[in-house]
């Protein structure tokens, strides 16, 4: 005699489907991107503090634990970027007349293309 039955929602909802786990991975890897931005800001502050402070900071960053942190941040950032590049064609479809640009091509045009271009410009600027 209890009317409609409402199923309970558990705290572990994200374990129910693989897609939920992929979503959580995409969102949580964003913390690594944000964390690395903080690291870059600290690096700029140390640069502003003088040559000796910056050299000491670079020395600290070259320890094994910081190197490991860099590798983890790189992997997380690449995963975060790739998942959003895959989502871009859904959020920003490109139409050419009545034809929609295929998703892989749209991801290259709006994601991978600009990413690689900016990376190449930065690498060229640093190495020249």
């Amino acid at each position, binding site marked *: *005699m*209890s*009317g*409609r*039955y*409402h*199923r309970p*929602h558990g705290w572990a*909802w*994200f374990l*129910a*489907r693989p*897609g*939920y786990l992929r*979503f959580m991975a995409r*969102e949580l890897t964003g913390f690594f991107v944000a964390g690395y931005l903080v690291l870059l800001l600290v690096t700029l502050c140390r640069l502003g503090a003088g040559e000796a402070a910056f050299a000491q900071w670079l020395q600290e960053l070259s320890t094994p634990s910081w190197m490991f942190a860099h590798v983890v941040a790189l992997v997380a950032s690449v995963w975060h970027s790739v998942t959003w590049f895959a*989502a871009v*064609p*859904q*959020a*920003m*479809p490109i*139409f050419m*007349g*009545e*034809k*929609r640009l295929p998703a892989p091509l749209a991801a290259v045009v709006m994601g991978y293309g600009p990413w690689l271009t900016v990376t190449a410009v930065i690498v060229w600027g640093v190495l020249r």
Partner: protein
Amino acid sequence: MRTEQTMTLEIFRYHPETDSEPYFQAYEVPYDEDWVVLDAINWIKDHVDGSLTHRWSCRMGVCGSCGMMVNGDPKLTCAAFLKDYYPRPIKVEPLVNFPVERDLVVSLDGFMEKLQAVKPYIIRDDVNDTTGGEYRQSPAELARYKQYSMCINCMLCYSACPVAGHEEEFLGPAALALGHRYNRDSRDRGRAERLDVMLAGEAIWGCTFVGECTVVCPKHVDPAGAIQQAKAVAAQEYFKRFVMPRGAKGAET
């Protein structure tokens, strides 16, 4: 093709008159590789247990009535073949994120309210004026919304969406995709009215782009994509109304 083999369906049972909690009941059904899960449920109702309650109609993936959880996945049971699960048991439950009325039947009330809220029809003042002929639309204009018009309101997307289950204000994938479909229709003039609804509270902003609504959609509507596009339009409208509180509402962009 019918064989001598059988397989087990574990079906969610709940009768509000007698049950305070749901339970699962196992049924042995003949294994036919041409059968879908809906055929097996119908066989149980016809031959074993007439009290089993479920919803279905067309048996061909058009009406959207027979959506259920099949081994944890929201599926149209008329399109879920037994052979894809055989010989393992199949667990059948009502769609999650909806109150259960009875056995495999869920309440549609909340969904229907949300669907109606986005005004899923063409809105224009001169709707009865046919003196100018038909409202013409180019293939390119049709292409801008056609994908989002294929929704059959099967509600699988609501069962795949974790936000729909936790946030009452969220209008949900199908309703928002349909609202977006009409907002993109070149014949429509009702975008401002729909944006009033979409901009309220968590109606659209509740979406975190999990994307599973698109994964489970049997008609490839891509509600997740529609919602992100609608969010962009809603964000523009929000800032327009913020900057020009009197002038922006109703303006077409």
